[in-house]
């Protein structure tokens, strides 16, 4: 049972994980595991991870986010990372963390719109 540092909400076929505060490594890994379970359980086709609150995204966090994207993809869901702040984005590229191959959007609203575009209408019709 992961701590409520990143509660996962369900919006139709989309899961929204909203990070509430600075996560320690175990929390991130917990989030990953929980998302995988939930994607399977609810047959979710879309996942949004909102990291607006995070003031630092280091190599571990980037790696774990990429893992989540890959793992959820294997079980049929598309993930969009949203809410990376300007300072954080800047620090990340300096570090060489580009999250290549991962979909990103400005915030939750844009993230949901992006999922809609990516998944097409069928995504919602289920």
């Amino acid at each position, binding site marked *: 049972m992961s701590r409520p540092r990143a509660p996962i909400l369900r919006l139709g076929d989309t899961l929204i994980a909203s990070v509430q505060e600075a996560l320690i490594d175990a929390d991130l890994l917990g989030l990953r595991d929980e998302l995988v379970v939930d994607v399977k359980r609810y047959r979710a086709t879309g996942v949004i991870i909102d990291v607006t609150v995070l003031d630092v995204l280091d190599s571990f966090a980037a790696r774990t986010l990429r893992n989540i994207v890959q793992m959820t993809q294997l079980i049929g869901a598309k993930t969009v990372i949203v809410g990376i702040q300007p300072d954080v*984005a*800047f620090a990340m590229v300096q570090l060489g963390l580009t999250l290549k191959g991962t979909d990103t959007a400005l915030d939750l609203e844009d993230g949901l719109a992006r999922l809609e575009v990516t998944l097409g209408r069928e995504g919602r019709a289920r």
Partner: protein
Amino acid sequence: MADQESMLSVAPISREEVVRRKAFLEFADADVAILEGVNEFAARYTDSVIEDFYRHLMAHDETRAFFTDPDLLLHVQKMQKAYFRRLTEGNYDEQYVANRVSVGAIHERIGLPVKSYFGMYCYYLRAVLERLREEYKESPEHAFTVFKSLMKLTFFDMGLAIDTYIESREHTIQMQQEAIRELSTPVLLLRPSLLLLPIIGLIDTQRARQLTEQLLRSVRSNRAKVVVIDVTGVPSVDTKVANHLVQAVEAARLMGAVSIVTGIAPDIAQTMVKLGIDLMRITTVGDLQSGIEEAERLLGYTVSKITCTEKARGKEQS
């Protein structure tokens, strides 16, 4: 800020460095004793030396210009007197060093050129030499000995002051550059969700950093989905600049915005490829015009020209 002020007066150069410099100048305890020995004598002629000194400064246009403010002049004269007296008071320790360093900083701050600074020291030494010659007419050897010690100390002072001078100058330059950078980059909102960042002039790391920061903040506040970065006005795009560009593009992507780089001249593009820069990491389009059209296309706009007949029809209907 008050904290910073007091911190600035702490240990400007290390104790080891002070020891090294004194050793190189061969300024030792014997010299300290010699200088202390003429302290009383120095007290007697301080006023006249300082007055002559100022007459000298005022007699030359360049230096007179710095002391037009009577309050400043009075203040500086007091300081100069104190400085002069200090030369023969002994105890040339950390506080002495800190004091000399701040003197240098002050002179740099008022913009006094180094040549004038050196000229002033030269005047001092000559004035003192004259007085010493007078005082020790009977024992010229002693005058000579005192002068040698004084010279060592004075050159020690000059070394400290000039170091600070240079550092102060560099600091000022950096702050000015920072100010210029902040003034010079507009990020324009061309259409909803479309930003244009036209870059003009040379890009160094600092500027690139600032441009990227401004771009990213604009992406957030304008909810931009497409950014056109135009480098037509950048005279030289080398590996470093190209890397900065790539980083800006990648950072914008992390915030959900796609970037189009325009204005990279064909020969520069060639150089970049030769240098191994992966142009595939950024989308480049020929000129600004095409870049904007591409951006609009991405955003779902269609731009079409109204023909003459359509215009006419429009007029009829209204």
